[in-house]
Structures are given as C-alpha cells and as structure tokens.
C-alpha cells in the first residue's frame, strides 16, 4: 500500500539548490512515487500538503527544520529511500564542516573578521532576508539582495535605512549586477567599457549588457535595483542612488535605464534627475509610451533598441531565418521564457505587429492568460506560480518540460519561442538540457522552435557552444530575443 514518510532534521539548513539535487535523487529511487526536501516554513509545508507529501512528523516541523518527504509504493520502499538520502545529507555535511577554514555564522562576525568587506550578497529564504539585510546595512555594507518574497514594507524600510547610511540597497529580487567587471549572482562576463546600466530587471540587464558586449561595446557597472524600485510606494530610492553613483563615476560615459514603466509619481522624479546629468541616457521603460524625455535622453522600445542606442544607434546585423515552411492551419506563437523581461519584450514586439497577446506577466495592452482564448501566449516561467518551493528556471530549466510538451502537442501552435540565459549562477548547460527534453517528445509535424542565447563567449557555458547544441537539436537561433520574436512574425507571414 502506498506510504508517505516524513523525516525532520531539526535546526538543519540547506540551500534550495542543494535541496533540489537531493530531491531529484530521492524521487529517482526504486519504488518512490514522489519526493521532496524542503525547509519547514509554513508555505513549504502547504506545498508538501498539496502534493500529498506531508505526514504527521513533517506537520510539526518549524522554519529552521529540514523535512525529507517521500511517498513510495510501500513503507519498506519509503524507509529504504529515506535512509539512502539521509546518508547522503550527513556525508555532505561532514565534507562541508570538515573544511578547516573558519566560517562565521553571523554578518556581525564576518564584518568584524573582514573590515574591508563592502558588499553583502544575500540569497537566504525571503522570510529571513530582510533581517539579514538590516544587519548588513547597519554595519555600512552595500547590499545585493537576490532573495524574493520580501514584503514591500520591508523593502521601503531597508531602502530608507540604506539611503541614510549612504550605501546601495540592490533588490530584493535583484538577480544581476556587474561591479568593477565582476559578475554577481546571475550575470555575464562582459567586456569592460564606458556604458553604465541601472535596471529593475535581471534578465533585462543581462540581455542589454551582453548585446552591448557582443557588438563591440563594454560595461562600466551594471546595478540591479529590484523589480519594484520604480513603483510609487518605493519611490525609486535605489534607482536615484545608482544614477548618482554612475553620474559621478568617471569611467561611465553613457547611462542606460531599464525597467517596467515607473509609477506615475516616481516617473517625473527620475526624469528630472536624468535631466540634471551632463551624460547621455538611454531609457528603456518596457511597455511605456509617449515619454517626455529631457534633451540628454533617448527612448528605446525594446532591450535590443536600448543596446543599439547605447552604442550610437547603428543597427546590429540580424541573422536571417529562412527555409522553414508554416504547417497548414497553425498560426499561434507560444513563448516559454525563463526571463520575465524577455517575455515582456516579446509581448511588445507582437503587440506592435498588431497581434493579440496573453501572458501571466502581461505588459500594457496584453491580456491575461486565464482569458487567452486564441491569443498568442507568452509565458514567464520565472513567475511565482511556477517557482514556489523550487529554484528559478535559469537554475533548473526542468520547469519548461511540461509547458514545452503541451506546446508541441497543441495543434494551433506554429512557433515556440525560447530564451536560453547563460552566465554565472545559471544552469551549466541549458541548451543541452533543452535538446535532451526535446529528444523525449513527439515532434511529428511539430512547431518551429526559435531560441536566442543571452550570454557571451566568456561565460562558463560559452555562447557559441550553446548555439551549436540548439542548432544540432533542430532549433533556429536568432541573434537576440527581439530577433527571435521578429523571426516568429516572419514565419507567420507578418511584416512588422
């Protein structure tokens, strides 16, 4: 008879990437039907409960406890699998603690031991992230907060505190930064140069920095501020501080701003600050229209436009996509994105071509996915609904498997658009994993798949190697995300 077993490790922390690997190993064992390892926060316990994986033991776990949950064909199989994974957890822990290097347990201890430290990079679960950031700021550290699920109230108080201390608060939900040429969290190894970036979007920064780097330019600094910074509640505190820093930075000659459209109260403040600078700005507020910009600023509609404008306005060479026929009766575009801003850029390009678009992360003019009908569907797989209790699709592209199989089987879908985002922090071989996924799926009379690779030759995955893997799997590769969307339009016979 099927049996669900929970084992609780009290006061035992492991990060989400380590837990993902252990969960996979556990789920692959003989007789195991479903399995997960999660910290015992209320939200994680709810996920386990919804999956039928929460037993009485697990229900009593607390936020600092690790829950091993397994459902197997019988109690013997469940016990055996749990014992194997427990041994793995304990051996990993011994290996980690067997290291003779002392590891501080608090920010205070780390800051005391390293008085030169000037940045805290925080990626602990969201419910604890604000507390850690508060400690870091009070010790005069700049903060890059990768963690998400932080309340807007905490974000406001942290940013106000950071402003008073004169330090930068990047995030929460700040996926990307490049400081003094060093990629932080999800970022790419780009050429150093004179273009500074301030962005409320991780993948937006990645796309623009890599396009600039791959087309002859270079980046001075790229500062992520978190997706909500330009909302009226936050008031653009970090964006304004980042502009001040780049304006004063002699190595930065041109500044690019990337964000969703700012709140109506914060927009004039940002534009006023831009107008006070002697440096030229490129402003890419994805989805905004009719911006009245100061004379030193130009507007860019897409990320690609922003990269081109920062490099002087000349168009990049667009790779041609040809020789592909459109299956009869299919006219739909399905986007399966790991990057939220790349999904937004594609929506804009399709909307500008007069198409009807629906998305779970809709830009102005697009509809909601729940009411999509026969609209083109652009899905942001990094959205909370897909990532609850599991790593972001850039770390774990497995999230794409089911939506991809569904798109390939959908008789209305003609083109599937996919973003491959490489660089530090990302999966070691996302193109290879996509090729493996496709090899397991029915592809008769299947849609055309068009991808782009956000990254550089200097990234660990090497952009050209990723492109080769995609092409070998029968995927068309465009020069940028915008080019991929334009190629989809061409395949459907739409001249934009």
């Amino acid at each position, binding site marked *: 008879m099927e049996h669900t077993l929970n084992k609780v490790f009290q*006061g035992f*922390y492991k*990060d*989400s*990437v380590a837990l993902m690997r252990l969960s996979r190993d556990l789920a692959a064992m003989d007789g195991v039907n479903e399995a997960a390892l999660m*910290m*015992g*926060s209320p939200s994680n316990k709810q996920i386990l409960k919804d999956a039928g994986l929460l037993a009485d033991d697990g229900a009593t776990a*607390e*936020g*600092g*406890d690790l829950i091993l949950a397994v459902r197997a064909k019988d109690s013997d199989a469940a016990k055996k699998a749990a014992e194997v994974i427990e041994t793995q957890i304990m051996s990993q822990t011994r290996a980690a603690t067997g290291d003779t290097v002392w*590891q*501080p*347990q*608090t*920010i205070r201890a*780390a*800051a005391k*031991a*390293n008085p*030169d*430290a*000037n*940045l*805290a*990079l*925080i*990626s*602990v*679960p969201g*419910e*604890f992230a*604000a*507390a*850690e950031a*508060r*400690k*870091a700021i*009070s010790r005069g*550290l*700049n903060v890059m907060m*990768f*963690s998400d699920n932080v309340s807007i109230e*905490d974000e406001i108080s942290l940013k106000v505190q950071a402003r008073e201390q004169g330090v*930068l608060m990047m995030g929460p939900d700040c996926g990307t930064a490049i*400081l*003094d040429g*060093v*990629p*932080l*969290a999800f970022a790419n190894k780009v050429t150093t140069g004179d273009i500074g970036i301030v962005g409320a979007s991780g993948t937006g920064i990645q796309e623009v920095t890599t396009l600039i780097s791959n087309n002859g330019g270079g980046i001075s*600094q790229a500062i992520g501020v978190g997706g909500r910074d330009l909302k009226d509640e936050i008031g653009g505190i970090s964006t304004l501080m980042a502009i001040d*820093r780049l304006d004063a*930075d*002699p*190595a930065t000659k041109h500044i690019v701003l990337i964000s969703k459209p700012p709140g109506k109260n914060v927009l004039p403040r940002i534009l006023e600050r831009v107008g006070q600078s002697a440096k030229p700005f490129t402003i890419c507020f994805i989805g905004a229209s009719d911006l009245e910009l100061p004379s030193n600023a130009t507007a860019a509609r897409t990320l690609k436009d922003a990269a081109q404008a920062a490099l002087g306005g000349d168009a990049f060479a667009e790779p041609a996509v040809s020789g592909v026929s459109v299956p009869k009766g299919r006219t739909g575009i399905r986007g399966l994105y790991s990057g939220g801003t790349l999904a937004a850029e594609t929506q804009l390009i399709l909307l500008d071509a007069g198409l009807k678009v629906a998305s779970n992360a809709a830009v102005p003019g697009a509809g909601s996915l729940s009411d999509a009908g026969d609209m083109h569907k652009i899905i942001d797989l990094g959205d909370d609904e897909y990532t609850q209790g599991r790593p972001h699709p850039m770390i774990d592209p497995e999230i794409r498997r089911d939506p991809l199989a569904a798109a390939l089987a959908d008789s209305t879908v003609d083109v599937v658009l996919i973003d491959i985002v490489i660089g*530090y*922090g990302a999966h070691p071989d996302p193109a290879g994993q996509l090729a493996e996924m496709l090899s397991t799926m029915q592809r008769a009379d299947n849609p055309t798949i068009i991808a782009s690779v956000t990254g550089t030759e200097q990234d660990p995955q090497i952009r050209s190697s990723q492109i080769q893997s995609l092409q070998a799997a029968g995927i068309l590769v465009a020069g940028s995300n915008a080019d991929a969307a334009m190629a989809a339009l061409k395949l459907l016979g739409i001249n934009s």
Partner: protein
Amino acid sequence: MATDQDNLPFLGGKLSVINVGLDKFATELADHDVPVVHLDWKPPAGGDPELAALLSKMGT
C-alpha cells in the same frame, strides 16, 4: 582614454563580499579573485521569521 581616475573601485574600495545564502555565489566570486566570506548561515531565532526580524531591529 582611461586614466587612473577612471579605474577607481565603484564601491570606494576593492570589491569584498560577505555571502549569505547560496554557496555557489561564493564559489563563483572566489573564481574571480574577489575576497569572499561565506557565512555558515542557519535560520536565526529557531526559524521564526518574526522573531528574527525583531532581533535584527534590536541590532543583534
């Protein structure tokens, strides 16, 4: 042309990081020769987020 002044570190000193969370970020920074200290972090206050927030506001 770049001058010495152009090459000033952005945060006022050479980038030096305290990493709190995913250990792969610390490994990648070390690969770039960035001084990094990786915390042996565990959820504070016995895993109670509200108590952890309160303690951080008290400066502990």
